[in-house]
Structures are given as C-alpha cells and as structure tokens.
C-alpha cells in the first residue's frame, strides 16, 4: 500500500512539478505571483482536446492507440499545436493586461489582482465554450503494470513520469547552457543591469511567457490524460503549484520539480495515513511552513 502511495505521489508530483516550473519562472522574472497560471493549464488541456478531436475527425487512423498507451497520434500532434496556442494565449494576456500594467508601473499587488481577474475570465470562457462537464482524451481503459515492490502504474502514467524528467533536464540545460537561458537568469536577478548589458528585457519576458505557458499546457495534458479535463482543473492545482514553487525556491527549476514531487508524495501519503479529506490541506501546510521557517525554499531566493 505504501509503495503504491509513493508511486501515485510521484505521478501527481511530476504534474505539480511541471506546473510549478512555469510558476517559478514567471514569478522570478515578471516579479508577481500569476494566479492565472492555473487557467493556462486548463486551456492547454482543452486546446489539446479540441485539436485532437479535429485531427481524429480528419483521419480516424490517428485515433488508434499507440502501442501500450491509451491514446493515438492525434494527441501528441495536438499537444504540439496546443503548446503553441497556449503560448499565444499567454502573450495575448500579457499584451492586453499585464504588459500594460507593467508599462504604467503597476505595483505587485495590482498585477496579482489583475491575474485573479484574468483567471476568472479565462475559466468562465472555458465553461462557456466546453461546459463544466468533465471530458476525457480517450475512453480506453488501461491495465496497471506491476513494477515490483508492490507498485503498479499504467503505461500512460510511466510516460508522464518520463516526460516530466526529460522536460526538467531540458529546461535546466536551457537555463544554464544557452544564451536565452542565461539572459533569463540575468533578468531574474536585475532587470536594469540586464538592459545595460544589452539584453532585450521585453524579448526575455515574451520567452518566459511562452515557456511557462508551454509547460502549463503539458501539465494540463498530463492531468487530462491521467485524471480528467475540467474547466477548474488548473485552478484546483494552484495551491500545490505555489507550494512547490515556494518550497523549491523562487527561480529554481530543479527546486520546483523536486518540491513538486515532495508535495505530490506528501499529498499521497496524507491520503494513506491521515485521510483523503486532508489531501488539499497538505499543500497549504507546506506553503505556510516554508514561508515561516525557510522562505528561501530549497534552492532559491526569498518568496
């Protein structure tokens, strides 16, 4: 039972970690807690659903399951387009709302309140377009494979874990080994100095929106694949996401992923040992404890 709780926690933690990376990047570079990040997760999931549906309609071959997985090629192909579209959605929200407030010198609290407004709008739009009825990428049932040590996982779950690991490494390499990654870290530390050394801060901000939204989309597709797709799915993940971003340390990608796993595992073990009704409280307790005891988190700077 404990082994299975650990596996479930790891899978949930991988999704939380990916979402938290987006939160930590936007928080550290845009300097505000974006409460609309959850809606990017939901929109990513629904955009992938819509595009996947269109692709399946155009060619039924694309809906046939790939190997042991529950989905056909229509989903990975749709995911690529959905990532781009979620990025565009984030850029549009920046152009219409956050960028304008930034240009007017809007304080952090104004940006946060604006993100609440954006979240409500985006969530309501999803409910208006898709209704609040849960939907699924596939109706196929998967049998969990025994992994040894009392653990079981479906192929979809294992794919999700593997993909999360690959993405974390890729983003870490992007930040540490590429010019745009170094520029992002520089802007995160000091925007004025970044301008002085020739970094186009606006370009970096656009890149951060695209990257954060892309990761939110992937996290949304994972959540949709493993659980279900609902307009509130991203909003419901928001507390664990912020708990992971702050526990990992604002600005730290490995920190966000590690903390995502810790939050996921803690939630899963809480269900096992305390009761399912306490699951949601775990992220809150972690968040408050980190802010009180060690606000720098595991690897980053003060939240």
């Amino acid at each position: 039972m404990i082994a299975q709780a650990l596996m479930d926690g790891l899978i949930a933690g991988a999704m939380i970690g990916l979402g938290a990376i987006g939160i930590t990047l936007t928080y550290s570079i845009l300097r505000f807690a974006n409460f609309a990040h959850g809606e990017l997760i939901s929109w990513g999931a629904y955009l992938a659903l819509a595009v996947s549906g269109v692709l399946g309609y155009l060619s039924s071959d694309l809906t046939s399951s790939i190997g042991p997985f529950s989905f056909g090629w229509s989903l990975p192909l749709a995911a690529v387009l959905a990532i781009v579209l979620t990025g565009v959605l984030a850029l549009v929200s920046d152009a219409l709302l956050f960028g304008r407030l930034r240009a007017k010198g809007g304080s952090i609290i104004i940006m946060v309140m604006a993100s609440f407004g954006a979240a409500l709008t985006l969530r309501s739009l999803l409910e208006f377009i898709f209704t609040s009825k849960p939907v699924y990428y596939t109706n196929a049932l998967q049998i969990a494979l025994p992994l040894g040590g009392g653990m079981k996982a479906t192929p979809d779950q294992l794919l999700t874990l593997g993909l999360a690991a690959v993405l974390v490494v890729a983003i870490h390499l992007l930040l540490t080994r590429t010019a745009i990654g170094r520029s992002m870290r520089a802007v995160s530390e000091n925007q004025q100095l970044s301008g002085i050394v020739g970094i186009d801060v606006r370009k970096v901000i656009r890149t951060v929106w695209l990257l954060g939204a892309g990761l939110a989309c992937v996290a949304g597709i994972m959540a949709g694949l493993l659980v279900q797709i609902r307009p509130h799915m991203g909003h419901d993940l928001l507390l664990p996401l912020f708990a992971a971003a702050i526990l990992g340390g604002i600005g730290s990608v490995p920190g966000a992923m590690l903390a995502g796993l810790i939050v996921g595992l803690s939630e899963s073990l809480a269900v096992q040992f305390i009761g399912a009704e306490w699951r949601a409280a775990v992220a809150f307790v972690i968040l408050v404890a980190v802010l009180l005891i060690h606000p720098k988190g595991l690897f980053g700077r003060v939240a």
Partner: protein
Amino acid sequence: MTAPALSTQALIAGYERDLPIVRGIDFAIDAGELVVVLGPNGAGKSTLVKAIAGLVPIHSGSVRLGDRDVTAVPAHEKIRQGLAFVPQTENIFTTLSIHENLLVAANILPKEARSRRIAELYTMFPDLAARPSLKAGQLSGGQRQMLAVARALVVAPSVLILDEPSAGLSPKVATEVFRTLKTINETGVTILLVEQNVKAALAIAHRGVILVDGKLRHEGPAATLASDPIVAELYLGAHRQAVNA
C-alpha cells in the same frame, strides 16, 4: 572637424519632470580622453551619467555619441552603439558565474567573436581567468568592480562610463581600479568617470568637469584642477555648509 566621442546639449534630466536634477548641461569628450565628473554630494553627477546611459528620463536636450543622436535610444540599444555603462552598485549578476557574466554581455557580438573577446579580457584581467566558474556573488569588492569593468568592455565600446568605481573599496584596491582604468584608456577607449575620490581621479584623468546643483560650474585640465582654488572651495564650501547646518 571630427565630432566628439560623447556630448550633451542643454541636457535636462531627472526622475520627475517637474524636479530636474540635471539642469541644462553642455559638455563634450573627445575620442581617447579620460574625463572625470566631480562635484559635491547631490550635484547630479550620477544622474547625469545615468541619463546618458538611458536609465534616467531625459526631459529636454540631447545626447550624441559621435555624430549620432542617441537621446531616445533605450539602454539595451546604447551598448550596441558603443556606449557601455558600469553602475556604482549592483553592477554584476551575483547569481551567475564570472564566465556567465561575460557571456551574457557577449550575446550581442557575432557568435564567432565571443570566445575570442572573452579570452582577450581574461588576459587583461587574470584574476577573473583564475576561477571562471566561481559565482560572482562570492567575489570581493575589488574583484566585483574588475568583473563589472570587464563585462562592460566585452563589446569593445568606444565610450565607457563608470559611476564611482572606487566607492566602498579600500585605498589599495581603489588604486588598482584606477590603474586599470588608465590602462584601458591608453588602449583608445574614451572614459567618462564619476568620482568622489578627487585626488586619485584627477591623477589619471586628462580633464575634469565640476557639477554643482545640476549645472556645469567649472572645467579644466586635470593637472591644474588638482590645485585649483575653485575646486577646493566647491568641495570645502559644501563641507563647511554641511558642518554649519
């Protein structure tokens, strides 16, 4: 006639339009010169160089880099046009390594030139070359200034502006910084330097300009300014006012 390397025309600048700190400054620096901006506290020295660098709003007047008007050019574009600026504080990225600080600045160079230019700077600053992967936040005050100067030099600027590079440094380290600036100037880089350390700055400068209350009050060759009674009066006068206040 060749245009000055850097010049300002009737420059008025400040953080708020109705409270200008720089109040109509005309001055020019010829290519290859090392000019020091002096003046009592609150004279507008730092605001002047920040306005030139694009960090403080310019309300009227103009800034020219050579024969180009760069008044409205944003800070991140000025470096591309050959104007490098080293702020007084927070002038390096402490969470990046020494090498990454240089790489970030080298982004605007053509790809093939980046490694070569950074290698040249490591030759010029051997202390930095010794530990390129060290986080810049772990450097001493003097090493940080050297990294900030090296970072500014990555793009081989035609004009280098520094805001009080000796602030907070021990006399020995400050002397080292001034010596380095003199060497850089001798390679042909035009330098505009804001300094409180009057004696040391005039010792390496060709010329000095003195600001008081946001206006250019006096200027002259460094050698004569060092013993100029007006300079002594401006500094000692300000000091006396402070003491009497």
